[in-house]
């Protein structure tokens, strides 16, 4: 107890807060793998058993983990691996090769990476020697030489598995699956992908060699569990250095969960996406509002964070435009309406704008054409309009066909919120035809 007291005394309030923030941020940024995954116990068990059999019995396996983004595929995989490597005799035996389809964009790179991670004998330092063909032959020879009971099992973890299926001839996948189906070195091929149709990508020979085990991670939890996760993610652990602070913090989180407005925010969030990443984003924003003077997360913080999360990025851009640019946008809106989404060019927009100026010359300042062109180009740079042809097609700027990337509703919303918007402009926007 005295130890705890001494710690309490040496930690100021500010230190406590910064420590709590650091801990929670690590959690939200996926730098720390939680001890147990939530809501996917059966999948977790399935994978664990499978890998255990490879590690302990030398049984070759192949499996795909399929689920939408942010469903926790990598988390489950990492949890299982951590758990597996805790067993001492497994840790001594298992070799791992982790690949990512976004990094190993072709088989040549992938093979080098595998060879490097397995520390085969043609690796010196971090360099892999030999040509592509030699590397392949070398790896296959290495895998072929040893047999089920004597050699160390190898776990191949292929993140973004679907991208590997786009490699030429699917050589790597064929060979990995072929090894997993023949009496060679025991391997477990674990593919992680978000594509539900991943099997259709596999060539028939590759497909035949794949064991067709798929573990689906489809975030199937309900709102109640979502709330639970929310609470779990924000709570500080028992072994936090300042116990009193942790207790207070957790108490606050508990009351937060019971708050009506918080529940509404979360409900809305839950409706839009069950992705863990988006929840983490929301919590991160809320957490960053905590300071010494504002030591706990309040419902208003969450509200603000939620507002930031669900903000329409393009409407935000509109708020920063000049009145001239806004007028051009409105002109374009009318053109789109008139021509039913057909593309238009600057000259048409300018004509439309001129018509408006002539009608309301007393209230809106008339601009020179070069100024208008400049404003038009600025809109282009903001990617509020998009040229129809690629940059290679050389037409005069005035006559280049463009399309508006804004919906009418967005424009009207933005006009409502635009500070000191001229009434004439507002009326013009609301009128059916220019």
């Amino acid at each position, binding site marked *: 107890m005295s130890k705890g007291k001494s710690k309490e005394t040496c930690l100021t309030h500010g230190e406590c807060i910064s420590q709590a923030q650091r801990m929670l941020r690590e959690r939200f940024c996926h730098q720390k793998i939680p001890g147990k995954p939530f809501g996917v116990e059966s999948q977790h068990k399935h994978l664990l058993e499978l890998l255990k059999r490879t590690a*302990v*019995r030398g049984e*070759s396996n192949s499996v795909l983990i399929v689920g*939408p*983004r942010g469903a926790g595929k990598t988390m489950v995989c990492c949890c299982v691996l951590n758990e597996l490597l805790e067993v001492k005799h497994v840790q*001594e*035996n298992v*070799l791992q090769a982790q690949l990512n389809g976004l990094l190993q964009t072709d088989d040549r790179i992938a093979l080098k990476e595998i060879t490097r991670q*397995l520390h*085969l*004998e043609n690796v*010196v*330092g971090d360099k892999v*020697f030999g*040509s592509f*063909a*030699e590397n*392949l*032959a070398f*790896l296959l*020879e*290495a895998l072929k*030489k040893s047999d*089920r*009971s*004597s*050699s*160390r*099992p190898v776990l191949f973890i292929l993140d973004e598995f679907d991208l590997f299926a786009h490699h030429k*001839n699917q*050589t790597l996948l*064929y060979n990995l699956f072929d090894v997993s*189906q023949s*009496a*060679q070195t025991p391997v477990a091929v674990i593919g992680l992908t*978000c*594509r539900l149709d991943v099997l259709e990508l596999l060539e*028939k*020979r590759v497909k*035949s060699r794949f*064991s067709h085990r*798929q573990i*689906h991670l*489809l975030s199937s939890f309900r709102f109640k569990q979502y709330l639970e996760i929310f609470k779990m993610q924000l709570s500080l652990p028992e072994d936090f250095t300042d116990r009193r602070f942790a207790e207070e913090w957790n108490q606050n989180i508990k009351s937060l969960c019971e708050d009506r407005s918080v529940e509404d925010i979360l409900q*809305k969030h*839950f*409706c*839009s*996406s*069950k992705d863990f990443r988006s929840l983490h984003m929301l919590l991160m924003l809320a957490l960053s509002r905590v300071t010494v003077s504002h030591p706990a997360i309040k419902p208003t913080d969450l509200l603000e964070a939620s507002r930031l999360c*669900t*903000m*329409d990025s393009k*409407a935000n851009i509109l708020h920063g435009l000049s009145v001239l640019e806004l007028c051009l946008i409105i002109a374009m809106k009318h053109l789109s309406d008139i021509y039913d*989404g057909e593309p238009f060019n600057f000259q048409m927009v300018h004509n439309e704008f001129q018509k408006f100026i002539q009608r309301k010359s007393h209230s809106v300042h008339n601009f020179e054409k070069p100024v208008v062109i400049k404003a038009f180009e600025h809109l282009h740079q903001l*990617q509020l309009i998009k040229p129809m042809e690629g940059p290679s097609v050389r037409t005069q700027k005035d006559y280049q066909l463009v*399309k508006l*990337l804004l*919906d009418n*509703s967005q424009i009207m919303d933005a006009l409502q919120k635009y500070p000191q918007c001229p009434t004439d402009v507002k009326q013009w926007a609301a009128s059916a035809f220019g």
Partner: protein
Amino acid sequence: MSRYFTRLKKRPVYTWTGRPSFIDRKLKHVFYEGLCIKTDGNANTGCIRPGDYILIEGDEDRSYVAKLLKLYDDGTGTRSSKHAEVQWFVRFHEVPQNKRKRLGRDPHPNEVFLYEIPNCDSDIDAETIITTVQVQHLEEDSPFPAAQSQENSLYVKLSWDGKSFSPVNLDLLLQSGGKPVLPASSHTDSLPKPDLEVSRGLAVDSPSRPTRSARKQHSSTSKYSQSKELSDRQPSNVIFTPAARKKLQLSNSVKPTGSKLTRDDVLAELLNEDSAVSLLEAEVTRRRALASKPSSSLSKKPRDLCICLSPIRGSQITQEHQLANGIQIGPQLQPEELVKRTLKRESGAESTEGETPSKRKDSIKKDAPLDILIEDGREAGGPVVAMTPRSRRKSAQVSSARIRQQLNYLNGNQSTDFDVDDDEEDIFLPTKKDLKSSSEEEEEEEEEESESVTGRRGSRSAVPRTPRSSRKASSRTPAKTPNKTPRRTPSKTSVPRTPRTPRHATPSIPSRTQPARKPGNVLEEARARLHVSSVPESLPCREQEFQDIFNFVESKVMDGTGGCMYISGVPGTGKTATVHEVIRCLHHAAEQDELPSFCFIEINGMKMTEPHQAYVQILQMLTGQKATAEHAAALLEKRFSTPAPKRETTVLLVDELDLLWTRKQNVMYNLFDWPTRRQAKLVVLAIANTMDLPERIMINRVASRLGLTRMSFQPYSYKQLQQIISSRLNRVRAFEDDALQLVSRKVAALSGDARRCLDICRRATEICEFSRQRSGSGLVAMSHVMEALDEMFSSPYITAIRCASVQEQIFLKAVIAEFRRLGLEEATFQQVFRQHLALCRVEGLSPVCMSEGLATCLRLGACRLLLLESSHRDLHLRVRLNVSQDDVLYALKEG
């Protein structure tokens, strides 16, 4: 080309000696007592009589050993009318690699084995005889004689019958009487053939019988091989500076036409030189110095190197005398004098050699890197050491013990020996020079001396050498030329190039500390047996196919002919497994002496990076050589087009044939063309998935060579699948019968893929094991199988839609609503989003903003519920459903 003709000019003339001893009137064969080999421009002739042991020109730069039994003329009067009947001997390296272990000891380098495999073609063209050789019979347990006594003798202790080594039957050896050993004439001495070294052997011989192989076969292929042989020894055009190439050409081309040195004389003289011993010691010290400081000799003058390398040609008439002189006076010669001599020859050689470069172009051949070494030596001076390493001279026994210590180093250097040899059996002039200017004077002088000594040794003494493998050469190269980029000759240099790299990387996965656990209970046992990898005792349900393939391969192996067979079938129907089973059985039969032995190699189109790698892999499996694709193709072409009576049949399995397709289809063409050659003895079994592959992707000449021996594997029926599972389980009772039937019926209906069937069964045992922890039953029941089937075959889409968030579900609904409105199966995001907003209002949800809507849409696109264009099109992104509308509605209604 000029070189080719020069060689033609010097080819020996074969004439019968003596009267016809016997005339077979029926066959019009006239038997003779002797054959005289006379070489142009040389007074020396050699006479060969029945009973002599002879060397015969072989394929792939090897020469064969045989005993001459009969000589006869078939009376046709053509050039190849001279025939000889022989009793073959094999060298150790001719024994198939996988059977070499059966000798049970290291072979003596000069050891040959009596070849006792029946129905081997023992009739040869007499004009392929190179020369005579001494073969001594030794008792099995008697030791090999000390090496220096009989340098170029071969020893025979055992006979080889294709399966095992056994003591030689003396009667057989002496059956035709005659002198067992030809008196050692100067003629025989000049051919230092007898060493184990394969290709080097021929290289040594080739100068004295330049174009016999070309004459032997009048086909174009022989010309091809001849020219290849030439280019083999040519330095690569790309690499050499012209001057250096000239020198090499010189040493390569002006062959001493049977250089008739009296070896013994020269050796005696050499031994008399009191410097001999000290020279060797000097060499040792030099090597040490070199090993520690490779750059120490860099300062050596190129000119000197030229001198020490430039050979005295043996083609002069007064050659013998001159050589003796050369050696005697060598050490005292002044460098200038030597240069003069060399230059004289060079100029002479150039006139005959000038036109060759075009030929030389294609020589990215196995010797090229070695030549580079020489080249480097000449230019840079440093790696010149590579030339010297020959320390096993039998005549210099004084320091042989010390030399043996160096063997490891030397073994690595052998390939360069080869080059020295290849540069003929010419004599490297001992050059002693006064390099007063150099600070490292002494050391270099020693080097020079030792070089010359070793050079002499190499040229004269038929030293036993361990077989050179190109891999060794390549792995050695880095030490010599560390600055070479690893890319240049990728497959040659194999993995290591720089000194840092491990020399002989062996592909292996480290072994585990504890052995893998054995299956504990019935279900685990069943699972292990059901794994696709476990090899079943027999292959049920493929008896007919097995028999067909077996008969095909067996007949080809029996007859020693070649042929192709095309096997097709969908994945998982046991094509490869059946072929392997056939090969297993045939190997078994071969071991039981029911069949001539054969060699089986396997390539897989999927296991190579590009089709041309097929050559590399075949070559490596056949001979252990490593080569570039181009070179490998040439070597294989040569191998399969030259006759080799002793070669065993090769059975080649080409899996995933369709991936060997190239635009010109030359890989496929070659694969199917080789079996049609009479000498190739190649059986090709090609496997692919589609039945009509030959018609669909092959051009006519390829399809025609593949022939019509086809076989297709039908998908398994449910009964067969059931039988397969039960035969694998083999009395391990883990499944209920109904469960088995369900699996096999289901798979048979879907694909007939046996792998799938086994995987489902395996999964079912797992499910059973999980559930058994709760309930009690031990057998895999219907319910478990159903669950496994569901897991594997049910589409995840519906579950995915049910698990999607509310907004995602609404978006899907909006997509369908928009499709209905448009009457199309495609809409832009903007259109769908309007529907989405409307639906949100209907559902009573707060409308989402555009950004969120787009995010939702992209999430659905990522898991392929929707098919989307790339997202930079923003509002105008086109959206399509990847699921049927009914599925979406069904999923959403239930939810």
